[in-house]
């Protein structure tokens, strides 16, 4: 699956996008778990509520949705445009 990072998250991951395909990743929670381990300095933000927002295939989600290998998942802080 394609993972995108925006704003200050890119500073924590050192990249704006990557492909992650791992058998352990079945849903949003397991993806976040995987990312927490890969980027330990992101863990505290992932664990706290309301710090990050997640979009699956351009749609916001707050639930632990099932993920597929061809999904595009964006992880980002609350928006601040306008």
């Amino acid at each position, binding site marked *: 699956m394609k993972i*995108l990072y*925006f*704003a*200050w998250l890119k500073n924590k991951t050192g990249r704006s996008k990557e492909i992650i395909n791992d058998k352990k990743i079945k849903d949003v929670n397991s993806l976040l778990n995987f990312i927490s381990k890969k980027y330990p300095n992101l863990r505290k933000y992932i664990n706290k509520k309301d710090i990050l927002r997640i*979009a699956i295939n*351009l749609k*916001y989600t707050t639930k632990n949705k099932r993920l597929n290998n061809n999904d595009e998942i*964006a992880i*980002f*802080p*609350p*928006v*601040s*445009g*306008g």
Partner: protein
Amino acid sequence: MIKIQKKDFYIENEINKLRKSYSNVGAVSNFIGYVKKNNNNKKVNSIYLEVYDKMAKKKLEEIVKKAKKKWDIIDCIIIHRFGKLTTGEKIVMVATISKHRKDSFSSCKFIMSYLKKEAPFWKKEIYNKKSTWLKN
């Protein structure tokens, strides 16, 4: 019409282009957001705006549909810029056109409020020595 672009735009030209496509426009309401010189007690030099382009287009299209259902608007235009912008430059414009003022006023405010909450844009303020991603 939704435009996500780096370049600046002329307010009058954009509104006229939109207005001229229709024969019975009675009201135009618009909102324009600019880069502030001072924010949170800090002197701002410039901002950097990042966008998740595909999702921003989708979210803004959704809100335009919602606004058209709620109010009797003829059409609307949303322009949001990205990249580096210096103080005083335009960031965003929302303009709605309708037969009557109430519909254009209300829908313009509704679209702008939704954009602030839901459209995936992020603003980084750049000061003399530091920079900060804004929290909305």
